[in-house]
């Protein structure tokens, strides 16, 4: 009923067996156990294995991360490499797919025997990928993936190369509110948020902290990632007229909310959105440049910062891609800086020593100084940014601010 044309059954199955055994033997490339340490060959380039979502849902941040990693590689190689060895990146595409990211890192570690790993983008992919690295005791520095659960697993080889995890992102904005005189603080606030591992914890944590400051919550609602219609939320907000609207917005929902608020003619005194406004021109095109005035958001990196190699990074990015550098590329660059610092400090490619060094030390990156708790969670804080006159300025924390003025209250919609 299902078989292909055979010559004789016995002969056929023998043939199949032979072919299969031959195939099995061909795959037997090398007999080293995964736990045996790799012999470091001193004269060969250092190979760093990375799987990135170059296609699929996360293609956009994935491609930016690739640019960040490549700029770092070119800079390092131009200066003679790491430990005197050239650096080679082995980047594979995981198509934003969990199965593939696991297979990719498994292959990079056990088949390609890469010397070091760097992380991928989005928590969805970093969860399973970091587990593969942990199983194989490879240091895994990830440029994204700040969902809180990432660090509740007790992983020892995982490091998050951004200043803070999602719940701590809100701190810088809350500190700004605290710095205001009592009269200028918002009295009421609304907290719509997309159900997203990076947006929602920020808003939840902000709500708790602001409530402690006496800001009354008039609205708090989570909406799903595929929500396209914000009119009903906007009309509820318009009817409750909060002073502050703090939205956990990934991107399109942030644009959608501003548009809907504008349609209904309601402009809050303060508008905070988590990451949507960081998408520079895409955001200003979406909501109209004039309407960006006074919008707050938090960000891990700023183009104007005076941190190590930042200016060089920005220049290299502009030269290579003829565009404003993206935060995702900077984060990837920082992850690579972290790994580089540790390898150079340890003086060898020894995963356990690198891990221990990172737990004990602070690394200077273009995002600022980074250091980690035992579980790989970073100890720093984010930047508070604001759109002013069609440009982005850092307004907090005060010591890193690029502008002394803060637009408050926000002007009405244009």
């Amino acid at each position, binding site marked *: 009923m299902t078989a292909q044309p055979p010559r004789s059954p016995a002969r056929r199955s023998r043939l199949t067996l032979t072919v299969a055994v031959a195939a099995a033997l061909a795959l037997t490339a090398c007999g080293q156990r995964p736990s045996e340490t790799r012999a470091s060959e001193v004269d060969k380039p250092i190979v760093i294995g990375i799987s990135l979502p170059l296609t*699929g849902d996360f293609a956009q941040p994935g491609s930016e991360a690739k640019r960040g990693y490549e700029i770092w590689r070119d800079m390092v190689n131009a200066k003679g490499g790491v430990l005197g060895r050239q650096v080679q990146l082995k980047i594979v595409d995981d198509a934003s797919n969990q199965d593939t990211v696991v297979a990719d890192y498994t292959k990079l570690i056990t088949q390609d025997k890469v010397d070091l790993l760097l992380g991928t983008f989005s928590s969805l992919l970093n969860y399973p990928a970091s587990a593969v690295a942990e199983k194989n005791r490879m240091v895994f520095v990830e440029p994204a993936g700040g969902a809180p659960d990432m660090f509740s697993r007790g992983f020892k080889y995982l490091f998050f190369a951004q200043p803070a995890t999602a719940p701590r992102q809100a701190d810088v904005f809350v500190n700004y509110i605290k710095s205001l005189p009592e009269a200028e603080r918002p009295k009421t606030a609304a907290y719509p948020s997309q159900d997203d591992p990076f947006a929602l914890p920020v808003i939840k944590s902000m709500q708790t902290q602001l409530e402690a400051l006496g800001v009354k919550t008039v609205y708090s*609602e989570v909406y799903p990632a595929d929500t396209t*219609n914000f009119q*009903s939320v906007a009309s509820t907000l318009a009817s409750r007229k909060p002073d502050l609207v703090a939205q956990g917005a990934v991107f*399109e929902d942030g644009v959608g909310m501003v548009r809907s608020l504008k349609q209904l003619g309601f402009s809050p005194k303060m508008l905070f959105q988590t990451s949507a406004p960081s998408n520079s021109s895409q955001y200003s095109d979406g909501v109209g440049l004039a309407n960006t005035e006074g919008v707050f958001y938090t960000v891990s990196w700023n183009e104007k910062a005076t941190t190590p190699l930042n200016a060089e990074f920005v220049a290299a990015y502009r030269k290579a891609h003829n565009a404003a550098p993206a935060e995702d590329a900077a984060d990837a660059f920082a992850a690579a800086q972290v790994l580089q610092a540790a390898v150079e400090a340890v003086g060898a490619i020894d995963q356990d020593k690198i891990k221990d060094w990172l737990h004990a030390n602070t690394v200077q990156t273009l995002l600022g100084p980074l250091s980690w708790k035992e579980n790989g969670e970073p100890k720093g804080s984010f930047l508070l940014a604001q759109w002013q006159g069609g440009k982005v300025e850092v307004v907090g924390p005060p010591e890193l601010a690029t502008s002394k003025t803060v637009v408050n209250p926000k002007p009405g919609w244009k």
Partner: protein
Amino acid sequence: MAHFVQAIALGLLIGGVYALMASGLTLIFGVMRIINVAQGAFLVLVAMVTWWLWNRTGIDPIVASVVTTPMMFGFGWLSYRLLIARIRGSSPSMSVLLTFGFALVIEGVLNLTAGNKFKSAAPSYFEESFRVGAISLPKAQVFGFAAAAGVLAVLYYVLHRTWTGRAIRAATQNPSGAALVGVSAAGTGALAFAIGSATAGVGGSILSVLYPFFPASHYEWISRLLGIVVLGGLGSLPGAVTGAAILGLAETLTATYGSLGWSTLVFYLVIMAVLLVRPQGLFGARLREDAA
């Protein structure tokens, strides 16, 4: 109270647009017993083209449907001739798989050409509203609704008042009988598929204004549209309009008074409840082949 009326008004405006989008799907099913799973991808394709036109030339997105509608008519006709017609006569599930594959191909092509970013056309009137007492009706929604209602009226006229329409309806109700009086099944098939696709020309243009979209948005749209036609009864145009209104209201009301997160689920629950009582949907007649 004003809040409630506001929600109802928004729900009905959205429902009208949904009805237009679902009409093509139900028409194609009615004539050919084909579920065109690619209809959602057609919408996104048109939205992308509209966005591109608007971005390059500044043509108003809703006006751009004058261009996209004939384009989709031709596209639908070609799709039928090159793809669907080849599997006529094989089991209906094959057409589902074929159009599903086709939807993925469109998504993939859009991915490669337009990139994986959210887009949305924002004409000048986008942020403006008509105010009726305490209620504000966003202009974009109103224009979208008007365009949708207009197209549905034309569609109704064509189906009921012209010979072509009668031929299509005859083929819907009794293919072999229609063949006897000289209505060719292949001809009406191509025509119905082209008309069904052409509705996506207007629908997609409206979509580009009202909702941000990216290539993979078509899953969301097709599941909504399929829900509407199952609820209304496969193949029934009044059913699609009713189903669309119910979806629009269910979404807005749940979002206003309940939680946005559950609003889509509420609609699916309504579908399951209706199917439990009326397996053929609200307006669906039992098909001839349902009898043994």
